[in-house]
């Protein structure tokens, strides 16, 4: 019975996407913090991708991209007041899409995640969307494969991600404009963090012949880059006049802003105190870190107890817990790991009243 309803729900979703032209996805993506739903549905849809190729291709990528983005977001905001708990049930209740800085981060990292996944898919070779346009820019038609090869996988990923996510934004207001811009910021984060790799292959291996290409950097680095942009996000003064005169779907709406900067409209709410109507759980009972400075600890983690607990008016309570952990592991590639179980005592810090 449950199996049946699951399949039915999935078909309904496909129907929705095809009919209403991405109404649901739009909604989900627009509201940022609610995109946990998307991950859920997309994983559901993955199984159907073989029978419905057209949607499956995109759904797979959106699903995996969003999943990757969620993980990254939660990692990056582990020690912040807003801890990117975008899958929590309370948040989904809030109907109003809030155009805050945090939403901007989620939008950007989702866009980056989808682009990252599309690029990877393009590389792994079973992706039909991966087109072959000329690698030479500024020339109509470009080259064909035999003449000058196809364009970079990353460029293809960027294009596809733009097409995919930007067409989902159908509204024409401030939030939509912000969403589009943050999508771009996410894509730019992927391209700007790319690594440049070269290989020399001239006569006797010398560098008289050298070929270089750009390579996706690790997603963690992208997440960190976007977080830096989040700290320097710009607040946009949106007024209704702009809506009438300009088409917010165009990139040139914010020509003065650099493409990689993030924008938001509303001020962030106070994440310290729980607020049911806004769906904020508050920082009460949250964990913070007092890791010793033996290793290089990131700033947000070092400041976490002050930032998450004390500045919110809570006390930090230390508890020592006994945890069973694995140790003395012996690993055999690919898939076998034999470990002993050890008991470790760990200090934990929580925010309490």
């Amino acid at each position, binding site marked *: 019975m449950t199996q049946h309803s699951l399949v039915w729900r999935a078909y309904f979703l496909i129907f929705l996407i095809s009919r209403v032209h991405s109404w649901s996805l739009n909604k989900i993506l627009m509201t940022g913090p609610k995109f946990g739903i998307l991950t859920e549905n997309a994983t559901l849809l993955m199984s159907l991708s073989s029978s419905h190729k057209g949607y499956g291709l995109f759904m797979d990528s959106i699903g995996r991209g969003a999943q990757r983005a969620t993980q990254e977001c939660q990692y990056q905001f582990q020690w912040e007041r807003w801890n990117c708990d975008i899958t929590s049930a309370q948040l989904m209740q809030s109907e109003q899409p809030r155009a805050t800085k945090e939403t901007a981060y989620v939008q950007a990292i989702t866009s980056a995640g989808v682009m990252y996944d599309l690029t*990877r898919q*393009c*590389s*792994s*070779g*079973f*992706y*039909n969307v*991966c*087109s*072959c346009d000329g*690698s*030479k*820019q*500024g*020339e109509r038609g470009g*080259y064909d*494969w*035999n*003449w*000058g*090869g*196809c364009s970079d*996988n990353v460029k293809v990923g960027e294009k596809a991600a733009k097409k995919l996510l930007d067409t989902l934004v159908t509204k024409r207001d401030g939030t939509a404009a912000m969403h589009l811009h943050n999508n771009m910021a996410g894509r730019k984060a992927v391209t700007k963090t790319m690594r*440049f*790799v*070269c*290989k020399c*292959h001239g*006569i*006797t*291996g010398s*560098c*008289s*012949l*050298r*070929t*270089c*290409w750009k*390579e996706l950097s*690790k997603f*963690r680095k992208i997440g960190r880059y976007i977080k830096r942009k989040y700290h320097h996000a710009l607040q946009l003064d949106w007024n209704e006049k702009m809506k009438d005169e300009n088409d917010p779907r165009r990139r040139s709406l914010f020509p003065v802003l650099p493409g990689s900067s993030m924008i938001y409209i509303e001020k962030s709410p106070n994440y310290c105190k729980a607020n049911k109507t806004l769906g904020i759980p508050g920082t009460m009972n949250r964990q913070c870190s007092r890791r010793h400075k033996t*290793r*290089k*600890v990131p700033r947000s983690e070092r400041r976490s107890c002050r930032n998450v607990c004390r500045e919110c008016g809570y006390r930090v309570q230390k508890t020592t817990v006994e945890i069973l952990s*694995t*140790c003395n*592991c012996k*690993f*055999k*590639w*690919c*898939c*076998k*790991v034999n*470990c002993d179980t050890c008991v470790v005592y760990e200090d934990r810090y929580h925010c309490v009243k």
Partner: protein
Amino acid sequence: MAGVVLENLSWKKLIILGVFLLVLLITFFLVGGLVAPKPSNVVTVLGTKCYDNGKKLNRSKWFVSRGIHKCEELQNLDPTDEMIVNKSITEKQVVFSFWLPGPRGGEERKMTPLFQNMLAVLQVDIEHSDKVPLSKNPVLQLDVRLGARDEGDDEDDWKQIASSVEDRNLQCTLEKGKGEGYLYDCELLQLFELGSISNHYYLVNIRLPVNFLKGYNVGIGKVVDISIHLIHQNGGFTIVWMSMKSVLFVMVLSLLIWFWRRIMQLGRPPNLLERTLFSLGVVMSILDCPIELLQLGVDIPFMLLLNDIRQGAFYAMLMSFWVIFAGEHIMDQTERNRLSLYWKHLSAIIFGSICLFVFDMCERGIQLKNPFFSIWVTSAGTKLALAFIILAGIAAGCYFLFLCYMIFCVMKNISAKKASLPTMSQLRRKYYLGVIYRFRFLMMATLVCAACTVVFFIMSQLNEGEWRWGDEDLSLEFTSAFFTGVFGMWNIYVCGLLSLYAPSHKTVVEIDSADGSTEENVQLTQLPTTPSETSALQALTSKAAQD
């Protein structure tokens, strides 16, 4: 040496010729920059992790990453993954499969012989985990097979090209303070190099066999993904390059014939410099000869090696020419015109060339047998390769010291001669002025060409690097322009030498009509001369007598 065309050419004609050659050079540069695409293209293919469900290790089976014979794919290799646990998959059952090149726009792309050659490098993604750290200097052992298939063939009909078990040293670093799940930054590993492309599709299957006793693949950490970067020459670049080579080949060859006929007309055996210049022309035309075109019809795997040899021969010949040219213009008392006088310089060149040749044979020669071979992967091989390269470097250093010394001698003599020029007779002054002019002209031309090469090279390297020229939409392909421009420039250099340093008819006529012997004898008795000048003059008169 008798008078050459250069000395008897009027300024007007010289400038016209210079402008013509300059225009030619700019044309080559622009053809490379505007018509040709980038010299090479990179295709990145992420490996598909195939599950080999056979009970026994079956090395003859191909695992294909897509199409109707697609293998059973593993989503990830995590020890906790459901499929891995359920089927208790071991490393023997995991095959990384790569179908080269990747599909684009919904259809399979084919390799063509136009791509000339391809080089595959491996990128290994290793996830960091405190529990399974990377050992010190880990060695990755790859059990690798390369197969190929054509478009019309049966989808399952992959023919094996090569198979080997190869060791590669992993060099990975991790950013400080990064924890679980971070990926190491690993250096690229060379996988294989093919000197000819005769099939449409290539398939690479890689296994990582683990053997605790022998220590294979033990400390390699959590290898989660492997991708291949395939570098191949672009078809468009091949076409442009071949057309350019054909044009240059015809040009150099016709000039060479003209040059030789000029010498034949002299009615005397050609002197050393003329013979050297002729050989330079011959080597240049061999380098220009577009034999790569044969690859479009026939499979020639040794083309890379042949190209290296042709290029090396040209460099060696050019260096020999410089030395002999400088030597023949020293203007001291020694009677030169003999190759044996240059044995020091030439042996340095030959020694250096042989070193590089042996090295190249070790690398590309063995690659003909085993495309996965690379001399750099083993420490002994690296030492050997470095030894050859260092020896070649020392030889090159010696050569340049000799050459610089020789040029220094020439310069010294030139200034000495210049000081005494006004006191000389008409004929001798003309002779020395001619020698000085010829030398200076070649020196200038050579320096300009060398400087241009260096500047272009640096520019192309910078342009390739992270620092780019202006806009990304810039439609000038600088790397291609560099190759066509520099190649064209050295061709033009050789052409210029062949045409300007060919023996001049005018001089021959003048000397014949000058009623030389008596006049020179008179001059000899009239002028107080230093010994060196006398001997030089004697050389001149003897040559005149020969004529």
